[in-house]
């Protein structure tokens, strides 16, 4: 900071606090609502302090689910989301690493064409190709399966591009030294390039895990079997129940639970994540 007068300190803190409040308040309301009986929420006035039904509500949501919305237990949906998010994150990273390695370190015909093709697809969001993709997945009989949930989302131009940029910053001499040391292409990839990409991989994993976890439209399209519902689409189904009041306390409990895994991932990988975004180890 340029100046350090008490008044500026006060203002900066006030602004920060305000920001935190604006972001945290909805989450607080969600949490509070998830600990009350349904009647307390139906009255229209949302309580501001937690009620005493924390354990009951959460065990109900986790175990039995909402009878009105098909009764899929939240635990099951969390598990499905976890599988999908992990498969997408790991799959994307694995494929992008290999693709970027090929593009940067090997000279093959149409190399630049490959790169630009990948690059151009950066501009296409999932939604644009969602119907043809659905058709393909349906034809392959992958509806209502983990494969169908994750594989179509695995190809990743963004991650390929990021790894390409990273590989380009690795000095050529490193590859040459490895060649002289007798390391073949696979060995170089495994012994040198992968360890050097560690922090980048961690940062991407966090981002891609959240991306996978938050998928909404795609699971909605390709799952009709309840046992493959994911948590994010599950919440939506709970709210739009036919002929009944949404069971807000359970919806809120589910929402809290849906938030947890991404938070855990971010916190657990925070150190590597920040390192991967700001510095490169070279």
């Amino acid at each position, binding site marked *: 900071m340029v100046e350090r007068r008490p008044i500026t300190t006060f203002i900066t803190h006030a602004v920060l606090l305000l920001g935190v409040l604006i972001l945290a308040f909805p989450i607080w309301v969600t949490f509070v609502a998830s600990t009350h009986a349904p009647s307390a929420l139906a009255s229209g006035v949302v309580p501001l302090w937690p009620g005493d039904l924390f354990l009951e509500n959460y065990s109900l949501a986790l175990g039995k689910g909402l009878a009105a919305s098909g009764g899929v237990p939240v635990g099951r949906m969390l598990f499905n989301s976890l599988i999908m998010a992990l498969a997408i994150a790991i799959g994307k990273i694995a494929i992008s690493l290999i693709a970027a390695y090929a593009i940067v370190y090997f000279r093959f015909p149409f190399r630049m064409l490959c790169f630009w093709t990948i690059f151009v697809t950066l501009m296409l969001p999932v939604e644009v190709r969602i119907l043809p993709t659905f058709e393909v997945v349906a034809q392959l009989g992958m509806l209502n399966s983990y494969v169908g949930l994750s594989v179509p989302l695995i190809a990743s131009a963004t991650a390929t591009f990021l790894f390409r940029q990273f590989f380009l910053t690795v*000095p050529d*001499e*490193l590859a*040459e*030294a*490895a*060649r*002289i*040391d*007798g*390391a073949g292409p696979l*060995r170089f990839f495994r*012994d*040198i390039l992968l*360890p*050097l990409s*560690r922090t980048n991989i961690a940062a991407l994993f966090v981002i891609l895990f959240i991306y996978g976890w938050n998928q909404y439209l795609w699971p909605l399209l390709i799952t009709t079997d309840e046992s493959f519902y994911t948590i994010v689409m599950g919440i939506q189904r709970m709210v739009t129940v036919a002929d009944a009041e949404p069971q807000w306390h359970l919806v809120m409990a589910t929402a809290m639970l849906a938030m947890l895994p991404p938070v855990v991932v971010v916190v657990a990988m925070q150190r590597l994540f920040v390192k991967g975004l700001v510095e490169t*180890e*070279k």
Partner: protein
Amino acid sequence: MAEIALAGVKKRYGETQVVHGIDVEIADGEFVVIVGPSGCGKSTLLRMVAGLEEISEGSISIAGRVVNDLEPKERDIAMVFQNYALYPHMSVFDNMAYGLKIAGTPKAEIEERVGRAARMLELEALLTRKPRQLSGGQRQRVAMGRAIVRDPAAFLFDEPLSNLDAKLRVQMRLEIKQLQKDLGTTSLYVTHDQVEAMTLADRLIVMNAGVAEQIASPMQVYEHPESVFVAGFIGSPAMNFLPGRVAQDGGSLEIRGGTARRAEALAISGQAGRELLIGVRPEHLQPVPETEADLFLDLRLVETLGADTLAHGSLPDTKSTDGATKDIFTVRLPGSVQVSAGERLALRVAPGALHLFDPDSGHRIADL
């Protein structure tokens, strides 16, 4: 036995040719330095020996085996890079051991060989450190260590000292020389620094624009440069050049319309009137009384270095043309000689210190 032989080695990148046919035979245990200005193709040549660049034409053999089509690892060489190219995520030990590990050397032997190299380079206390925890000089040593443990037929160095500060460079230069002597490993060393080249080399390859202008021992190159380029490149401060010609009597030399004269039996007698480019090194001129002088110098700038004094000026009749620093002529005098700008200095050329070149081709004609 690990001699290296290059025969007609050329390199083309598409249309442009950057190495124009190099022939040299390097004996077992010899330390050969490739020296030349930046961009002349030194690294390209070295990398062709290493197997990192394809050889466009000609052949390279190491230890009697043509290696044109062999992978770097099959050539039995080790290379030290300018930026060291250490693996950043591996410890010093692992950096040195990596090549042996890949070759499937037994663990005990790896430890023994890395230990021996580390002792030789005083790296024992640093074996568990990562490269980023080392100073420039230490990284340089690790890079050397990585080359040594492989016990290769030849060491290849590409400007290994360029990233070090001046003092460390001198120290590492000595260490490299000593190490090479102790190990007796054939070495090919690339540098643009002529001092480094002179001090390290058993033999020099002076390169210019992809051509080997001269291949000879450092003293040979210094005393009998084969071309104007070599004469100007080797030696610091650089050699002075003056246009001149053989006098009509055929037995003396005219420098710039008679400013200085030097009657001697010329190897080129009988070629009266022939135009020449005359070179003389700054250290081969002595101040003398006016009557004995070969040359006069109007001093413009004096640099005192302590042991030596560098006096820069121009010959009397060359000054007027454009007055600029173009025809600067430099003399190296002992530090004890007191001179100052504005003085006229009478100088005599040491015997045998005049180098005569053909002004058109740049080739050496004779030394006087």
